[in-house]
Each structure stands twice: as C-alpha cells, then as structure tokens.
C-alpha cells in the first residue's frame, strides 16, 4: 500500500491555483485572501512589500498591521490583525463615488480610475475598514533632504500603467486621488501573487480564487475558524481571518 506523503509548498500550491484561475474567464474568478492570525507575528513585511511594490509615498497606506496589546504587566499578550483592502463584494465605497471612478471588477477587485477620481474623499468616509488613503502629495525627500532621491520619484506600475507622481505638479494624478490596495492587480495579470503574500514570513496570507473549491484559499475560507470583519454591515468582504 502506498501512502501519499508529498507535502507541497504553500507558495507553490498558490501559484498552481493562480494559474488555474487565470485560465478561466474573468467573471468566473473571485480573488480572495485568508489571513491566519495565529501565523502572523506582526513583522510588517507585508506593509513594507506593499510600500515598495506600489512605490507608496508617505501618508498613502494600503496595508496595515494593527497591533493591539492586552492585559497588564506581567500578564500581557499582543494580537496582530494585518489588513489589506478587504475587496468587499458589496463595497460601500463604490456606491458613494459620484463619478464611477471606483468600481468593482468582475473578478471582485475594487479598483480606482486615477484619471476619473475628482478627490472628493466620500469613499474614504464611507469605508468601514479605513482601507483607503488620500494622496496629499507628500514625498520622502522633497523638501526634506538637499537632494530628491531617485527612488522617491520612481513610477509605480499600478493597474498596469506607469504612474508617475510629480513633486512639482500637484494637479497631476495620482496626487489628489483616493488610493487603495488592489491585490497587486498588475502582478496578478502577469501570473504573480500579490507582493504581501509572497513576502509573508509565516505564510499567514493565503491568496487565490475563492470560486475554485480546489484552491487553498477556498479550502481555508471554509474553515470554522474563519470570520470576516464587521460582517454585520453587509459589506461581504473577500478577505477572511482565521482566529
């Protein structure tokens, strides 16, 4: 009798899931994430990877690790909730946008059209999770150091386009826009996992197609340990937490 003992790397399995999902038509995919709070050590590698991948300026925050302390010394404990955009299936931010600049794609990702956003910030008010940022036009080195560092003005490739922030022109997008996590859509479309997922040291973040029952993310989302944040608001997030 032969017992199958192969243990597949989580990352490899997620890549296989990703390949399978990308072969389907876009409306049959539902990108989602499961974050295992027991595996999260609060290192913020996800936050840093996100900042680097999307060239996020100061004040624009897509991913956070919420760090909470419990108890009184010496009986203390910490809890970490890392939070990307939860890509709600019933997103309150989308309904309030006056110009259709933010919308939900057929694969479940909520995106922003930087050339359409008028910067009214209604979506920021409407997000129950604090997942959106306004780009106020800050830079790390402009006005702070004698020389503007090249990395400070490097373009990002969000949404598959070159997004160049110009310190001399505050009228140019994405400055003056609302901005948010998009599950690294530009990477997904090239068959790559989101930066935060590949970088997670504890493999606490599982990413994939929730519509595919064979995928790791769908299996873990079905766990009795899985919850979603503020379920009572009816936002239907695509991100699950394992408690």
């Amino acid at each position, binding site marked *: 009798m032969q017992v199958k003992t192969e243990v597949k790397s989580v990352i490899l399995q997620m890549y296989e899931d990703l390949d399978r999902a990308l072969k389907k038509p876009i409306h049959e995919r539902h990108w989602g994430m499961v974050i295992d709070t027991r595996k999260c050590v609060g290192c913020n590698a996800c936050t840093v990877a996100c900042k680097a991948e999307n060239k996020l300026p100061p004040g624009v925050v897509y991913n956070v690790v919420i*760090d909470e302390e419990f108890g009184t010394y010496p009986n203390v404990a910490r809890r970490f909730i890392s939070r990307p955009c939860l890509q709600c299936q019933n997103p*309150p931010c989308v309904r309030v946008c*006056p*110009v259709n600049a933010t919308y939900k794609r057929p694969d479940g990702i909520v995106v922003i059209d930087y050339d359409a956003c008028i910067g009214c910030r209604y979506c920021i008010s409407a997000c129950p999770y*604090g997942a959106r940022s306004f780009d106020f036009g800050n830079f790390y080195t402009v006005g702070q150091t004698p020389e503007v560092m090249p990395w400070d003005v490097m373009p990002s490739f969000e949404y598959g386009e070159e997004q160049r922030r110009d310190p001399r022109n505050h009228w140019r997008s994405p400055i003056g826009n609302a901005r948010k996590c998009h599950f690294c859509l530009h990477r997904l479309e090239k068959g790559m996992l989101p930066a935060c997922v590949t970088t997670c040291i504890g493999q606490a973040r599982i990413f994939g197609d929730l519509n595919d029952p064979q995928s790791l993310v769908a299996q873990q989302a079905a766990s009795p340990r899985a919850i979603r944040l503020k379920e009572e608001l009816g936002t239907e997030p695509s991100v699950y937490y394992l408690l």
Partner: protein
Amino acid sequence: MGKRALIIAIIGLLLLLAGLPGLVDRLTHGHLSVGYGTPVPWALWVMLYVYFIGLSAGAFLISSLVYAFGMKQFERLGRLALFTALVCLLTALLFIWFDLGHMERFFFVFTRPSFTSLLVWIVWLYTLYFFLLLAEIWFVMRPSFVRGGEGKGFKAGLYRFLTFGARDLSPRALERDRKIVRILGTIGVPLAIAFHGSVGAVFAVTVARAYWYTGLLPIMFLVAALASGGALLTTIVAFAVPNGLGEHREEVIGLGRLLALLLFVYFLMEISEILVSLYGTAPAHAIPIREQLFGPNWWIFWILGMGMALVGPMLILIFPGRRSAFWTGIAGLLATIGFVGTRWNVVLPGFAVEELPGIGRSFFEPHWIYGLYIPSAMEWGVTLFNVGVGMLILALGFWLLPLRAEEAPV
C-alpha cells in the same frame, strides 16, 4: 453705495486679501499643507460648505413664505432673502470646489455621474436650484429693472441690459410675472427640501460612521438650515440694511418669533440624539458625543453650539427680543455665528472613532492622525478668501440690485 454696503465690501475685501497666501498655496501645492488627513477626510471646508448651503436653503425657504405661501408680513424681505440664498449658494460651492482633490474635474459629476451617489443628487439638484433662483430673482426684480433703466448712468445702463428687452409693465405683464414667481417659488420649496435633505443624507447613509447613520440627520439638516438661514436674514435686515431696525421693525420681530420656534425644534432633536447615544454602551455611538461634550473641543459644543446657536438666542428671543428689533437682531447674529459650531459638530465627530480598534496607534504617517484635527493656516486662508468673496458679492448686490425696491411689489 450705501455706508453699510461699503463696510461689508471693505471687510470682504480685507478677508479676501488676507486669504490670498492660503489660496496661492492651495493652488500650487494642492492639499499638501492641510490639517486634515485620511482618518479625518472631511474637515473645515466641508463643514463650512454644509453651513453655507444650509444658509442658502434656509433663506430660500423663508423667501418662499412670501412667494409661494403669500405671507404678506415678510413681503418686503422677499428679494433680500432670494439674493442672500444666491450668495450663500455660491460661497458654499466655492468651499466644496476647493475641497476637491482635482478641482479641474468638477464637471465629471455632470458628464459621468453615478446615481447611486448622493453627491451626484445634491449637485444636480442645486444646479437646478441655482437656475431657479436666478429666474425667480429676475422675475421678481424685472419691474425695478425696467423703471430703473429709464435714467442715465452706469446703474441705469445695467438695468436696461438686465431687462433683456422685456420692458412691458402693463398690469397683464405684471400679473404674469407674479404668477411665474409663485410657480417658481412653489417648485423651489420641494427642491430646497430635497437638496438640503440630501446633503444630510450624504452623511446619514454612511453606514461606516455610526454617528451619522441615523434617519433623523437629514431632518436635522433641514431644521438647522431654516434656523440658520432665518438667523442670517434677521441679522442682515437688522444690521446691514440701512435703517433696518426702524423701517423693518415688524419683519425683524416676526422673523425672531419664527427663529425661536426653529431653534427650539433643533434643540429638542439635538438633545434627543445626545441622550440616546450616551445611554447605550456602544462606543461607536457614545465616543463622538463624549468627544463633543468633554473633549478638547468642548467649547465648540457648549459655547458655540449650545450657548450662541441655541440657548442664548432662545432666551433673548423669549425675553427682550419679543418687543425689541435690536435684541432680535442680536439673537440672529449670535445664532448665525453659533451655527458654525453645530455644523462643526455634525461633521467632525463622525471621524472620532477608529474604523478598526487600534489602527490609529499601529503606524505613523503624515496626514494620518486619528483624534484631534486643527485646521492649518492654508485652510484658514482659503476660508477667509471664500467668505470675503461671498461678502463682496453681497455688497455688490446691495449696491447694484434693487433688493429693497418696495415700489414694485411682486
């Protein structure tokens, strides 16, 4: 130009000049130096936009007492109320325009609207309202334009132009004007209620902010609009119109009675909101109220909101204001200023609660501070500029337009 109009113009000009550096900073560096941030995305300008749009709706609804409901008592104030509504609308729009991250894209609200957004509804509704106001003002003033256009000089020339060739003053033409004004005023009432109710609903539908998420909020917006608009009109009639206290004594006292009632209704609603929210244990409801009452900005609630906007004017109106136009005017002035405080406490406490517990202490980034918001110098600059522009337009109206021409009542 009358002496009082000149004073308004000079103050307006000074405010405008004082605000210029802020305006230049806003236009060259966008939102870089604002005091608000992502956790408090709407602040001073949005709050003042709500305030001025409320003044406009309120002043308009009071004008409709004359033009839609035929209350002869306030007839002589009709034109002034309409023009005040127009000035406040323009000032409000200026505020919200500067608040946009991309001012140059404002017209997207017309060219690519999303009707699930209440912002679209309010913009479309007060665009209609703007044209309705212009039309109503024109029809109300047309007889004065025709008569005033007969002389010589700049003003007569302007009036001749403003008649747009409609010079007929026959009883039939005047009767037709009266009818049109009545129709416009009547359409305006549901329109004003709809757009200002929708301004309230912009906040009220935000399920993410428990403080706003109440069906009472749009109604409170309407009552506040009527009260603050009435207060502003009282102030203008009493102190800005030449010899307003003498000539318009009856109207001022009449407006004062109306104001007392409106303030009392708003007071009741506010007390109800506060007590209900404080009674429960839900922090999302209780924290914004506790912040208002006992937080670092307690004075905005107690001194501006309660003292100057509500309790003070109510006491003045009940005791000396019942017979004195001067004291009624003072009550109006206090309430006009005080309502800025109640508007502040409608908008800002909505952001007093972290979306997720602990998020505010988990990272440090510029423009990302939970808790206390202090407007920056640039925000004050733009504010002074906008208010200055509003005062200049008001003074211009006093100077050029037949705001008080009683010889041609419509």
